[in-house]
């Protein structure tokens, strides 16, 4: 671990406003290679906004984002993905009409041959690529749930919430990103399901070299179990950073949560 203690991601003074609301206020953070960081804070504290600014959905009003040594502030979403950032969404955003395989392949965009002539005329090569990616998707899905892997050609709309969450995570992981952003993956799940899901994520992390994760979560048990460090946001400002134990006993944090509820 320590031999490659390289900084994967750094926010410096990141700021984003919506009208009068300051959703992110001079937010600084760093994330090392292979780390899992928990990003917590009361509702509306700017967690999702930080993901949105990082992935290029919203532009930053100030500050910089550095990823793997490059300044990626205000890059378009597509370029951020190409650089190796993949995410899930707080409100699941899958294409419900499409099959599981299709949804996972959307996440694999950068590794598929998108050439127009290739796709239309080189059917043999395309077929080989499809089959190759099929087995990879199948393998990945199997880690999360073997039953799900068998339903790979079913439409996503027919699945339960927990399966949809799993597929969203597979969609993010299939392209071997360097940074995975998970926005409340356990929303709408039981404790047992949450635990399973996290185990699966940890298992996959072993497979992908140097994968770092930022986890936004309200479920503190999960945060405590898996994160290397925690960052607490309140009204867009970082109020505390450190190991979960220290953070949980911090006075400011307790106030923020009590005040926020």
């Amino acid at each position, binding site marked *: 671990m320590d031999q490659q203690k390289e900084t994967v991601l750094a926010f410096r003074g990141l700021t984003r406003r919506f009208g009068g609301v300051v959703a992110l206020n001079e937010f600084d953070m760093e994330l090392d290679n292979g780390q899992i960081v928990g990003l917590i804070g009361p509702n509306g504290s700017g967690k999702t906004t930080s993901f949105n600014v990082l992935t290029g959905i919203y532009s930053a009003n100030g500050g910089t984002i550095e990823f793997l040594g490059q300044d990626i502030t205000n890059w378009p979403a597509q370029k951020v993905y190409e650089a190796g950032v993949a995410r899930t969404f707080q409100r699941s955003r899958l294409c419900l009409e499409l099959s599981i395989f299709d949804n996972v392949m959307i996440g694999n*965009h950068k590794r598929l*041959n*998108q050439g127009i002539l290739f796709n239309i005329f080189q059917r043999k090569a395309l077929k080989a690529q499809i089959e190759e990616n099929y087995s990879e998707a199948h393998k990945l899905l199997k880690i999360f749930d073997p039953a799900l892997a068998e339903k790979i050609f079913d439409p996503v709309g027919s699945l339960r919430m927990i399966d949809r969450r799993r597929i969203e995570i597979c969609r993010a992981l299939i*392209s071997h990103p360097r940074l995975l952003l998970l926005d409340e993956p356990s929303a709408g799940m039981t404790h047992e399901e949450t635990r399973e899901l996290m185990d699966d994520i940890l298992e996959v992390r072993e497979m992908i070299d140097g994968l770092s994760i930022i986890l936004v979560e309200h479920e503190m048990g999960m945060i405590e179990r898996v994160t290397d460090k925690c960052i607490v946001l309140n009204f867009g400002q970082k109020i505390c950073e450190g190991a979960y134990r220290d953070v949980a006993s911090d006075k400011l944090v307790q106030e923020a949560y009590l005040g926020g509820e």
Partner: protein
Amino acid sequence: MTQSLKDKLVILSLAVLATAFMITFLAIEEQAEIFALLVLAAVLVFASAKFGLIETISGCLSRNERLLNGAVVAATLIVAFWFYEDHFPLLMIATVLLYTVASCGLNMQFGYTGVVNFAGAAFFGIGCYTAAVLGETSVPMLMVIIVGGLVAALVGSILIIPVLRTRGHYAAVVTIAFGLLFRTFLEVNDALGGPQGLGVSGMNIFGWDFNSGITLTDDIEVSFYMNYVILALIMVMLTFVLMRRIERSWIGLNFDAVRLDETAAACYGIDIKHWKILSFTLGNFLAGTAGALYAMMLGFIAPSNFAFSDSLILVSIVLLGGMGSLWGTILAAGLVVLLPEKLQAIQEYRFLIYAVVMILILLFRPQGVLPRGLRAYIPGWRG
């Protein structure tokens, strides 16, 4: 009997049934008989839906795509040759085929990618006018079809900026405005014949003149429309292959992702603009090629053929068939073109009837009559 043999028999008997139906439908003229035939067809369809036959049949069809495609082409040819000396049925068949090509273009745009286009008739019309203008020159007529498509695609690219920049479905108004602009422009413009329109020379491939009948023997004279039926059928086949290949590739997946969720698509590297431009341009190209041949076939075009309601007819075909559904488009093109021609009672009211039917479809069966299924990248492949 093995499953596959059973499948084949089912498809063949369906093809025979459909061919017989089409021939009868095109042949009879007595309004009451036509009406009775349609009622019979409707009863048959509903009955087979009731007894679960539809599922059996569609399962059987999807297992044997090749055979199905071949059977449909053969059926079309048989119907066409049955009427080899009658102008009207052949003209109808060719019209259905060309409307199919144009509707496939629209389907690519909003069935696949969700880029609305309510100026379909305008792009079809650009193809028509290109054929009219180029027919006077020495450009080979087969080229003219392609050029018709290219000009449509090129003119469409003027709209790309507003279409791409507008959010959600506001793009609709851009295309509507363009459709209205196109028609008014043609009417006030003298160079292109004004409201009277233009004559168009017929198709001619290496000296084979499409506009003269084919005399096989002394007493067998084939209508010149047969030439157009065959060429239009070839165009439909090419379009079909193109649409299918696009759908069953990563391009089709990108199109779907763009249609269903632009934000998520962007977060996974999909360049929204790139795919929208591709689908818009290809769609307009298809509409333009169809228009070019259509103009040559009719020999005459006027602005009144390209009104807003004509664009809505193309939209109706896509909706009725089911967004993104190829067989649906073919079926719907047949219904929408043929019914008013055969049932004179509804001819005058056709726009009204279509619009009412579309409202009912959108309220009660938004997926259309033959909904598009899940993507099968490789037919019959299940991992």
